[in-house]
């Protein structure tokens, strides 16, 4: 049996593991003693590898380039030569006719790795000539990056994952660590065992709430009011660190003026929390000699996400919980390489290494290195703008790599209309996805396990992963495909391996310069910034309390609470909040093809509902129900549980039948453009004929699966030479 070192391709914890290979097939996974996982894995790490083997449980692996010459035609398998020439011609024509800004690309925060993302943004900027490149951080921790860059100067977790277990207080805000990052949950449990106080702010009784010293079940959509009230308590009870605030922050007077109104009593009316619990939380937080704030999508997926992120960083600044070990602010990244895709500049605002596209000197540096006369200086489009831009004719072509927006974006009806309105869509993936069904051209890539590269864990650690097996079928590495396309479009691009790409980007990004492949050998993890070849990187940021802002001080920022966008009415009286579950990941193209994981949970998924709400609606546990909003209607299964608060229901976002994004609203944060997945007004209805409903689910599921699978097998039949 062979063993090949890898980094888990699921959440952002960055667990190191060995893939066990027998006869060219991955047959198992075992944990390694990586820096962030220390010999642990969760169920996805242990049992989430068999998607590589094309189990076809949900959807088949792609084996050939597939082309559809018109939208009403079926896909046909074509040669790489034809696929690349076709794409180059179409993109060239669209660029010539409508300008470079009519084309958009995506990076991928998943198994492909940092090198591919670097190549994708290089292609977009240097070859297409636009900054229209984005990644799914937009729908996830985009607000954390945008908010923290303003207040502290750096959008990433300030401290490392291993430090969590040594802090004396963990303030968990809108972050279901047990379901999102099981191996990080262990750090919190260990912190508690070492005497740390745990405070959890979440409307649901999540696992961490169960273990918490203090649980604040705030009303859905009241984050800003609670964060302001926290600041109010810290200031008015004199709990804040006056010396630290005076030496290392700015904006205190303005900040104090805004939060003054948010007394615990005032916030109690908005948050539904007892005023004394709000006070108690801050007394615990401020008293701790070291304290860490961790947050997730419960903070960011709101139309007021950026403001709340800034507010949370304010709590750390007020108490001096930054710039040293075991403290800090932690936006814990959900996808294995969403930190990496931001690091690599698949963002419409930034080159790799967080260098602004609006800075002429930076543009000149990259233009020179990439051998082009100039690079675009206008900020590009955001991923969430795409449906609207396509419908209004501004966006004509899209090159989607390793993402499934037709599953993961809000208000899917709008997303589908957007794809239909575009003239040319390329989808590059390892699986046939719902998004790929909208493509004109499908480009098949190698999977995690079939290629090597570097991922960035949630705590900024760069780690290498290696190839375990040879890919089957006529597929290529993502970066290879993009290079071929660039070359066909008149920009010769060629790399022999990922290390060549890595070394090119290191030279261009001062904060990554010291991170060599050699340092990342084996279990090596190097957290950026790492500016020198002899540096081991930075476990925590802001050493000496120097913030990466002009003047070096942290900014205290507060603003008024704004209510969520969607309106509860008699017709739509319940709040729908979309969440995740531990056994499935992202759009589910990977975990849905893993036998163990789909054994634990399969279609149509669940809507969790409080027993009181269920009773009023005549709904019993495990029955199928309709959930509808102003935008759509889906069938799903009720899970009646006391852990769900009254007045709100929760659905996970990976199901095809119980697709909650048919219901969610396209209301976005004004700065980060991140959608308000956490608040949509819905109605839940019982279904009298459960036998009909069970059959309906099975039929619809079979139809959807069959459609995707037939597209692949049909294409292969049409051109047997390439099958």
């Amino acid at each position, binding site marked *: 049996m062979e063993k090949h070192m890898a980094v888990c391709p699921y959440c952002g914890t960055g667990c190191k593991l060995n893939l066990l290979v027998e006869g060219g097939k991955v047959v198992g996974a075992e944990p390694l003693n990586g820096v962030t996982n220390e010999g642990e894995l969760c169920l996805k790490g242990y049992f989430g*590898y068999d998607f590589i083997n094309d189990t076809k449980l949900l959807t088949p692996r792609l084996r050939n380039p597939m082309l559809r010459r018109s939208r009403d035609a079926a896909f046909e398998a074509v040669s790489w030569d034809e696929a690349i020439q076709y794409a180059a011609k179409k993109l060239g024509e669209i660029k010539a006719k409508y300008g470079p800004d009519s084309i958009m690309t995506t990076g991928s925060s998943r198994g492909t790795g940092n090198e591919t993302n670097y190549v994708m943004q290089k292609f977009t900027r240097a070859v297409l000539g636009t900054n229209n490149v984005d990644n799914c951080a937009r729908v996830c921790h985009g607000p954390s990056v945008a908010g923290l860059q303003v207040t502290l100067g750096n959008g990433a977790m300030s401290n490392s994952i291993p430090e969590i277990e040594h802090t004396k207080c963990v303030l968990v805000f809108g972050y279901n660590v*047990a379901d999102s990052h099981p*191996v990080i949950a*262990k750090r919190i*449990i260990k912190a508690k065992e070492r005497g740390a106080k745990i405070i959890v702010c979440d409307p649901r*009784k999540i*696992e961490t709430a169960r273990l918490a010293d203090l649980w604040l079940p705030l009303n859905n959509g009241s984050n800003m009011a609670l964060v302001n009230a926290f600041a109010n308590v810290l200031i008015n009870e004199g709990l804040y660190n006056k010396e630290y605030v005076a030496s290392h922050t700015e904006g205190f007077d303005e900040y104090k003026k805004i939060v003054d109104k948010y007394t615990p009593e005032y916030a109690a009316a908005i948050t539904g929390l007892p005023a004394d619990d709000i006070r108690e939380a801050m007394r615990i937080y401020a008293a701790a000699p070291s304290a860490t704030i961790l947050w997730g999508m419960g903070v960011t997926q709101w139309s007021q996400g950026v403001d709340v992120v800034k507010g949370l960083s304010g709590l750390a600044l007020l108490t001096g919980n930054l710039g040293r070990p075991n403290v800090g602010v932690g936006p814990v990244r959900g996808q294995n390489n969403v930190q990496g895709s931001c690091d690599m500049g698949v963002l419409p605002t930034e080159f790799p290494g967080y260098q602004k596209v609006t800075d002429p000197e930076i543009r000149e540096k990259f233009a020179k290195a990439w051998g082009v006369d100039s690079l675009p200086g206008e900020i590009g489009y955001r991923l969430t703008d795409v449906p609207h831009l396509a419908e209004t004719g501004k966006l004509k072509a899209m090159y989607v790599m390793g993402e499934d927006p037709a599953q993961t974006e809000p208000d899917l009806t709008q997303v589908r209309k957007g794809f239909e309105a575009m003239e040319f869509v390329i989808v590059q993936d390892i699986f046939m996805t719902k998004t790929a069904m909208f493509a004109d051209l499908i480009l098949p890539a190698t999977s995690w396990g079939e290629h090597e590269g570097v991922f960035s864990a949630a705590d900024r650690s760069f780690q290498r992963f290696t190839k375990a097996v040879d890919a089957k079928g006529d597929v290529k590495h993502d970066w290879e495909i993009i290079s071929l396309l660039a070359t066909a479009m008149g920009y010769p691009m060629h790399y022999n391996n990922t290390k060549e790409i890595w070394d090119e980007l290191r030279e261009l990004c001062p904060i990554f310069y010291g991170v060599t492949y050699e340092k990342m050998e084996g279990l090596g993890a190097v957290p950026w910034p790492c500016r020198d070849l002899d540096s081991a990187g930075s476990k925590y940021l802001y050493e000496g309390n120097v913030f990466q802002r002009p003047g070096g001080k942290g900014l205290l920022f507060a603003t008024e609470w704004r209510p969520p966008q969607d309106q509860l009415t008699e017709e739509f009286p319940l709040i729908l909040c979309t969440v995740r579950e*531990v056994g499935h990941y992202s759009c589910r193209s990977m975990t849905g093809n893993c*036998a163990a994981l789909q054994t634990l949970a399969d279609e149509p998924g669940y809507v969790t509902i409080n027993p009181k709400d269920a009773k009023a609606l005549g709904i019993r546990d495990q029955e199928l129900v309709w959930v509808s909003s102003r935008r759509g209607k889906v069938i799903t299964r009720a899970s009646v549980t006391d*852990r769900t608060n009254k007045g709100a229901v929760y659905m996970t976002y990976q199901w095809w039948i119980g697709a909650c994004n048919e219901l969610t609203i396209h209301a976005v944060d004004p700065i980060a453009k991140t959608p308000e997945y956490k608040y949509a007004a819905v109605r839940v209805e019982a279904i009298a004929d459960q036998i009909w409903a069970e059959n309906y689910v099975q039929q619809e599921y079979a139809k959807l699966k069959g459609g995707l699978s037939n597209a692949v097998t049909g294409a292969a039949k049409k051109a047997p030479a390439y099958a």
Partner: protein
Amino acid sequence: MNKFVTANPSKCIGCRTCEIACALAHSEGAGVEGLAPGSFKPRIRMVKTADVSTAVMCHHCEDAPCVNACPNNAIVYRQHSVQVEQERCLGCKNCVLACPFGVMDVVTVPAVRQFAGMTLSLGVKAQAHKCDLCIERGDAGPACVSVCPTSALTLMDREAMDETLRRRRERAALEAAEVAA
């Protein structure tokens, strides 16, 4: 003393990694690809209520109700654990009703016999289905314990039990001292 697996609810995060590991450890080498919803029968089960998440599994009782209830002596004490001699199991379910923890079940599996190079179907065979402490894994120990990402599961043997008791007594002594003071 019989060994048994204990779960600590203050460490459990309800992830069900243990359930998959259990099913796989008893899949006779079929691997993950042999798992499917219809045949998924882990011997350890994660239970989630409003306030508790934890795994429940066989306690390998010293005076086991299942052993006492079995009319055919199919359940026996062996290697410091309670084991089932499956060939003797009738599928009568007395043990299921007797178990106060709800961790004994009776399942049926296809029964076959080899005869002259052919596989003959013999209908179904009943099996009393419970934690066997992964006795066939030998020194590797129970699979659930080895995978739990939060170390919520531990294998309790005499030594581990003595250590737990020692710590409890120490705590009791300290608490008593506090009360006295």
